[in-house]
């Protein structure tokens, strides 16, 4: 008797997490990337604290977006190479939930860590402490949306030899709304306005992407396994 969809997804998430945690250095790479790119901005813009604090919401969000983009390429790659993706397509459980499980594991290993670590980087850029809760919350919500959208790009390009550049061209336009609302939430908190409405919109984007993105990811995986 086949396992229930929920149990199957749970085991899929656990498998991805175990695989991720076995390579702690790779797990740290997105954070390291985040730290390095954040360090580029003071070098490029000048170390004046006022300028940096002004740009901090945008900088932090753009860097989070790039770090998510770079990891999206690898979500399905190793599983396509070792054949487990094909087994997943043959499994009786719906691919929709399996896709969701992959994305959830990806978010737990990248977005969650990034959201939790973001206050440190925010302080390095001189962001006012009042805006830090809004930053962390908006990143936690927003990176989940980014992981779902990135999953679509990852699924569509996983069968291709040179996916890296292509995936950015495909999915960056779809990242833009998240960037707008995410950085607006931080900006609002910085100006003393409530960040709630922006976080609510990010939550709404998350709901719609949870409902729709796995469909596109599943379709993309079916195409990619054919190549």
């Amino acid at each position, binding site marked *: 008797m086949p396992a229930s969809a929920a149990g199957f997804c749970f085991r899929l998430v656990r498998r991805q997490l175990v695989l991720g945690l076995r390579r702690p250095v790779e797990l740290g790479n997105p954070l390291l990337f985040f730290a390095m790119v954040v360090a580029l901005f003071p070098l490029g813009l000048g170390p004046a604290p006022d300028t940096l604090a002004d740009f901090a919401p945008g900088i932090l969000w753009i860097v989070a977006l790039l770090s998510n983009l770079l990891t999206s390429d690898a979500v399905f790659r190793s599983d396509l190479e070792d054949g487990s993706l094909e087994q997943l397509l043959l499994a009786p459980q719906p691919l929709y939930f399996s896709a969701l499980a992959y994305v959830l594991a990806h978010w737990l290993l990248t977005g969650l860590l990034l959201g939790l670590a973001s206050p440190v980087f925010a302080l390095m850029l001189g962001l006012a402490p009042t805006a830090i809760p809004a930053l962390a919350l908006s990143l936690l919500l927003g990176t989940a949306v980014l992981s779902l959208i990135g999953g*679509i790009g990852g699924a*569509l*390009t996983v*069968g*291709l030899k*040179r996916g890296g550049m*292509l995936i950015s*061209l*495909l999915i*960056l*336009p*779809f990242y*833009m*709304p998240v960037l*707008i*609302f995410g950085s*607006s939430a931080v900006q609002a908190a910085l100006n003393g306005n409530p960040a709630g409405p922006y976080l609510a919109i990010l939550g709404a*984007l998350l709901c*719609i992407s949870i409902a*729709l993105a796995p469909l*596109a990811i599943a*379709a*993309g995986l079916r*195409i990619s396994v*054919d*190549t």
Partner: protein
Amino acid sequence: MWTLFHKFGSPPWLYRLSGSILRWLLPITVVALVAGSVWGLLFTAPDFRQGNSYRIIYIHVPAAVVALAGYYVMAIAGAVSLIWRMKMADIAMRACAPIGAALTFIALVTGSIWGKPTWGTWWVWDARITSMLILLFLYLGVVALYEAYENKALAAKACAVLSLVGTVNIPIIYKSVDWWYSLHQPASIKFTGGSTIDPSMLYPLLFMILAFYALFTCALLLNMRAEILQREQRTAWVRALAGERGGN
């Protein structure tokens, strides 16, 4: 109805049909574009504030309108090819992308040329301009994805998925950019001051929009015909066609 449906799946039938459509649509398009341009550029009154520079509207607005509509044509063709596995829909979808990208580019460039005398700058991060720029990226993304696949049948499927994802996202992107703009700066420049365009300027504009739709259709059909011939180059009917025209 089903016979028609099956006929649409047949390359030779579509090739002949598009040929007979183009035979009359192409001359009409050329005449309409020339007539519309002459009407708009020579026979309408100059705007009382912008003088003659506003006349670029007769290129700019039609290109923008058709560029937006083209994305939906592409997405619908993509949906048809995914749902009914219709080969001709693949070809239509693939043909839409470069045409749409070109029209979006024309709209952006003419807008920029228009912006210089009117607003005093080549580029403003206005909500509409930004969403047109994103539309250009979406079109180019479809082209890039299609070219990346070796197997063209899979390429078409992947592009169909991408263009459907885009359809869901376009309203979100459009709305979010709209809000972003109104958040960051007050609307100092109104793109359209309400619907206050004079009928003498409106009619040539509507005429040009129709002419651009016809242009889009012609370009789409020509593009599709080229693609059909390339895909079917090894079949008997294409060889017969090439023989008729005196090729080898």
